[in-house]
């Protein structure tokens, strides 16, 4: 949580000028892992592919907006997704470390018409 936003953005702009690849911008984005058992971290700035989330030195492989989650570990469909040290849902698709975790690949296990856990 130390990087200034302006500094980070300047760095992104600079790398966008020189790189045509989306990989390895190396821009560090602040993020927060709330519990050791968590399988995702929350990014505290908009992140682009190639950025690094600082807490875990993990490279983000796609754009992840402010407040959204990045997978720390690989998930198979059906695997628990954990944040706050608790289960927040299950993976519905294979998820690789560095990928954005949201409604397209993670679903609630609760409050459903088709059956509750």
């Amino acid at each position, binding site marked *: 949580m130390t990087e200034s936003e302006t500094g980070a953005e300047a760095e992104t702009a600079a790398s966008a000028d020189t790189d045509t690849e989306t990989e390895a911008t190396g821009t560090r984005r602040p993020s927060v892992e709330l519990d050791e058992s968590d399988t995702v971290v929350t990014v505290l700035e908009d992140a682009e592919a190639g950025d690094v989330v600082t807490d875990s030195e993990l490279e983000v492989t796609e754009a992840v907006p402010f407040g959204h989650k990045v997978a720390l570990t690989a998930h198979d469909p059906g695997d628990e997704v954990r944040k706050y040290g608790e*289960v927040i849902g299950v993976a519905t698709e294979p998820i690789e470390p560095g990928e954005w975790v*949201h409604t397209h690949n993670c679903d609630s296990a*609760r409050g459903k018409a088709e059956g509750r856990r």
Partner: protein
Amino acid sequence: MDTFDGYRRPDGRIGIRNIVAVVPLSVAVSAVATRIAREGPERAHATPHQLSADAPDATLEQTRRVLEGVATNPNVAGAVLVELGTERVDGEGIADAVAAAGRPVEILSVRECGGTAAAVETGVELVDDLAAETADARRESADVSELVLGVECGGSDATSGLAANPSVGNACDRLVDAGGTATFSETPEFIGAEHILAERCADSEVREKLLAYVDRREATAELMGADLRGAQPSPGNQEGGLTTIEEKSLGAISKGGTTPVQDIVPYGSDLPVGGGLVLMDTPGYDIESVTGKVAGGAQLVIFTTGRGSTTGNPIAPVIKVCGNPQTWDRMASNMDVNASTIVTGDDLEDVGERIYETVLETASGRPTAAEVRGLREFAINELQPNELGYFDGEGDGETVGSEEVSRS
């Protein structure tokens, strides 16, 4: 000992505002009530709502409970109850309760007045009289333990669970440590976090009641052939980074702090003074949820937001705590406390203390952003037909659905 300056009522309760409430008994007279308050003195605030003159008994009982609770909230100096004349809800009974709480009360019937124009004219006279009668109320020092603080969240995003909610929870812990009552609600937003709340329940009776309420809310969604997805988390919540109801709930419950759960009470029911952390069973719709807690006697509400909610309440001041730095930049004029500094490394204790101080200042009369802008949203939860099988209408919540508690 922390204190604030409030208005001592004849029933012993302490108000933090000196409001003349204009309370319609049905939707038929909501517009009349609003008009009376608008043409009356500034201290006159209406509580317009959408509930009909007739309804199933359980629905009517919940409406009565809320109207009575609102009209007897410690912030109310006096009340005018407005009716068309066809309402099944017991207006006389509500008036008796207001009188028993030591507050002056009048009933105004639009039919008896001979129409809305005459009713507005008479209503404004009544409100003026009540305002004059209660104008000499003076603030006196009261212990913070007499505060009942309602806590709400709306327009949640990922920052809610990281910044605004835990820092408000810290302020709740301070209030509870000082002997006061903090209450949060929105039962659908316990789903996925109820095991944490259950572990914190004061005893097994409270625990079973809590789990029954959660099961009931979850089952109601199932009963409707729908599920919570789409509504919980809302599209806005999802855009803000919240993927599932479990994730939203885990962030939401932190706004109540870390003290034991002493009880859970039905929607709009009395909240104890000096009761510690007490939950209320309400829907997730924030305006209805705030109304329930104000009907329960909360003099003050803290409302956390990430994406930017602006709502207030006609009876209780609403303090807006914002946890999203971008929202704070855009909407600071609608916010009271900036908790987004936690995202950039500020200490939770420091922000919690700032919120607690804001509570004391607001209780002593400092207007909130919503009050300054005259934002007074109000809505009463209406029990739906498919909920009636789950709610007995007596509002005890002790027995109904207890068989539902068997969980796997």
